[in-house]
């Protein structure tokens, strides 16, 4: 398989260092890329992956080091330079202009023009169609990008890369918003790019994906180069060990939790998306909700918390039916909800840790003014008990890492002393060791008798932390499984409709 030509790297980055005020983001890092290979770049958040690719694509300037492309030294000062050298990037947040057509997005910044500067629309659409055909994608080049699905948008980004005669393509978390099936399609396209001899720098948090797609993997930790694994050496344990400097991050909760009486009963919940969902959550239990994107997981918990309107169904908390028409009612009834998008839906990024912790339950004096002493005490106690790493109470949450931000959100709900805590994707975009800490925290809370409902796209996570797992498909409950006896394959079978009805966990209700 490996021809000698493939062994010569197209791209070499050597001795790359970069510091920001107060932080050395990269220390003497190296990375090389061969033609037609997928080379994964791995590391926890803050390890320096994004700094490295931003230097490569011209968004940051390096302090020292060389970048060589086919033996030539490159001086990349801005994104236009990088593109001229044949280095393309597909960013995690897709860089498309919603109201422009597919063709215009593919040729953004390189529109073919006719003699007097007028854009040559015919040539542009022709070329766009050719590239889309080459990718075996049936998208109309005239369609506005706004109307496409996330997966289709991803393909437009790939078409953009393919049309530029690239040598190097950087893909930053390309599958984070894709379903399993769409991910498989994307992998086919990646193979096509490989065949064309394009070297691909691939970043992903999903280790299984890395193991299937990557030819090599380089691991960074704390801004330093740790090592490069060849195809045969890549295994999730090796990777995790190199990323965190220790092994065993995902381990199942070994202790037995005492699962008590029912706390939350959801009966025949129906919304425009969710159809007739029923489940029971017990004291001290962690119940997971699994399912593909769009299966109604998030919509279910949003309706339980009173964010999305219910069409019918009952929500019973501790034997009493409650009317949750508004999150305020859910909170006063004893529920807490950490939504899937921390930054947009949970945190006030410009406000302090203290305010963010106290916002759901303000301490007011008799004049309606905030009692800052109590706020400080509460915030301080959670900083200690949850090990929130922040320089001080007044630090704006914007400057915390993802894991610490999530802990602030959890602290906010713990301070309201809820009976039911709902966590939607609590560890998305959080590095491996912080994930472990959040799982540990959930286990501790459940051991103290809190009932926890967790939505997650990561099956290993659900298998690690949950007692039972509810699998959803097309807005309905496809099955309920005991976490200790099920497997990823079984969950996927329910989520995709290969298995239906019942499941072992059903007996508990």
């Amino acid at each position: 398989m490996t021809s000698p030509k493939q062994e010569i790297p197209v791209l070499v980055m050597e001795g790359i260092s970069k510091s920001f005020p107060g932080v050395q983001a990269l220390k003497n890092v190296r990375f090389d890329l061969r033609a037609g290979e997928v080379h994964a770049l791995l590391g926890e958040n803050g390890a320096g992956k994004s700094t490295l690719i931003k230097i490569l694509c011209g968004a940051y300037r390096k302090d020292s080091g060389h970048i060589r492309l086919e033996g030539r030294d490159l001086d990349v000062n801005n994104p236009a330079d990088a593109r001229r050298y044949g280095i393309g990037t597909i960013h995690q947040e897709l860089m498309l202009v919603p109201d422009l057509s597919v063709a215009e997005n593919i040729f953004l910044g390189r529109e073919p023009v006719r003699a007097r500067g007028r854009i040559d629309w015919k040539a542009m659409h022709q070329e766009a169609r050719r590239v889309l055909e080459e990718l075996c994608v049936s998208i109309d080049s005239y369609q506005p990008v706004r109307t496409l699905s996330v997966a289709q948008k991803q393909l437009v980004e790939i078409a953009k890369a393919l049309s530029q005669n690239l040598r190097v393509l950087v893909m930053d978390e390309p599958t984070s918003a894709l379903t399993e099936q769409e991910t498989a399609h994307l992998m086919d396209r990646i193979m096509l790019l490989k065949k064309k001899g394009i070297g691909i720098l691939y970043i992903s948090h999903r280790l299984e994906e890395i193991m299937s797609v990557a030819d090599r993997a380089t691991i960074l930790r704390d801004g330093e180069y740790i090592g490069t694994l060849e195809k045969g050496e890549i295994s999730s344990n090796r990777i995790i060990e190199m990323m965190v400097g220790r092994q065993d991050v995902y381990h199942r909760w070994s202790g037995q939790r005492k699962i008590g009486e029912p706390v939350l009963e959801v009966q025949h919940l129906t919304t425009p998306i969710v159809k007739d969902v029923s489940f029971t959550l017990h004291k001290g239990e962690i119940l997971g909700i699994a399912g593909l994107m769009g299966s109604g997981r998030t919509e279910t918990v949003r309706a339980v918390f009173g964010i999305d309107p219910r069409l019918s169904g009952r929500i019973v908390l501790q034997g009493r039916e409650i009317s949750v028409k508004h999150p305020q009612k859910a909170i006063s009834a004893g529920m807490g909800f950490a939504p899937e998008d921390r930054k947009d839906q949970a945190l006030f990024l410009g406000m302090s840790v203290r305010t963010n912790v106290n916002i759901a339950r303000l301490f007011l004096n008799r004049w309606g003014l905030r009692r800052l002493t109590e706020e400080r005490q509460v915030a301080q106690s959670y900083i200690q008990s949850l090990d929130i790493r922040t320089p001080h109470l007044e630090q704006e949450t914007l400057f915390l890492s993802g894991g610490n931000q999530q802990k602030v959100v959890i602290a906010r709900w713990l301070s309201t002393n809820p009976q039911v805590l709902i966590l939607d994707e609590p560890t998305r975009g959080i590095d491996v060791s912080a994930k472990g800490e959040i799982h540990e925290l959930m286990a501790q809370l459940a051991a103290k008798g809190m009932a926890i409902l967790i939505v997650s796209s990561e099956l290993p996570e659900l298998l690690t932390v949950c007692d039972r797992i509810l699998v959803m498909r097309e807005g309905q409950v496809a099955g309920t499984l005991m976490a200790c006896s099920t497997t990823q394959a079984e969950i996927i079978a329910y989520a995709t409709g290969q298995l239906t009805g019942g499941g072992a966990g059903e007996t508990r209700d």
Partner: protein
Amino acid sequence: MSGFVKTTRELRALVMLLLLFVVMAVTSPDFLTVRNIQNILLQIAVNGIVAAGMTVVIFTGGFDLSVGSVMALAGVLLMKTVSLGVIPAILIATVAGVLVGLINGYLISKARINPFIATLSTMIIIRGIIMGATDAHPISVWNETLFFLGLGSVIGIPVCAFFLVAVVVILHYFVSNYRMGRYILVSGGNVQAGYLAGAPMKAAITAAYSISSASAALAGVLLAARLSTGSPVVAQDAPLLAIAAVVLGGTSLAGGSGSILKTLLGVLILGILSNGLNLLEVSSYYQTIIKGVLVVGVVASDAPGLAQWAQMLRRRVASARIQREHPSLD
């Protein structure tokens, strides 16, 4: 269904315009006369040119509050320099407008000042400069060519209206078919994407504000020509009227989408509405109320809150009907 809703939304301004036209033609015998149509065209030309330029700025996701001051500046400069000849005077006024646009563009794209604050500041500063320079006195000059530009007509169509059509067509063609025009849309749709693709976003934003100011200067020239007077106090409400016309036409204030042709529809709606209300002898004080309600109504019909409310209402009605027809169910 959703396709139908979408098309009606696209065509809403056109439907409103036609409806208004028919209603006026039926209710007022004076409406469909050559004289009145000429009058309408004359009335809308100045605001229309400002609104066309404003649309280009709104494409970037910003807006330009300084257009009224630029109009007054252009009018005063025109009258002060018309002794050099009409064409040099118009050129001077327009160049002054472009300069203001470059300043706005610099403040917004390079210094990254919020468009509201940047153009509010230039609006106040320019108004101050012309008030100071003229001592707040209008400058009246009689010039036959200017009078022709302002109030004359060719084959029965006001000269001003030709300018309006020319500005709309040129700007629309520019935005639709030239790279810089597309980049103006890109800067409002996803400025980061444009930057990373190597498209000159700062230049595009600056170009948009220059176009807006140049259009405002031309409108100021036509207004001064019509009045034979360059007044330092005119057009204080011009930016808001222009934004109202853009919104009424259906261009989103969020930027990145829309059309200058739609703005022309918005301008026509506002123009015919005020003409019609005049013919119907509605007091001009009440006219402003009607226009305000119209603008907020159009925007509200797109707002998510209203759509949600309507959906809930429909659902209530449906479930009430089910309960009525099947009382046994619950």
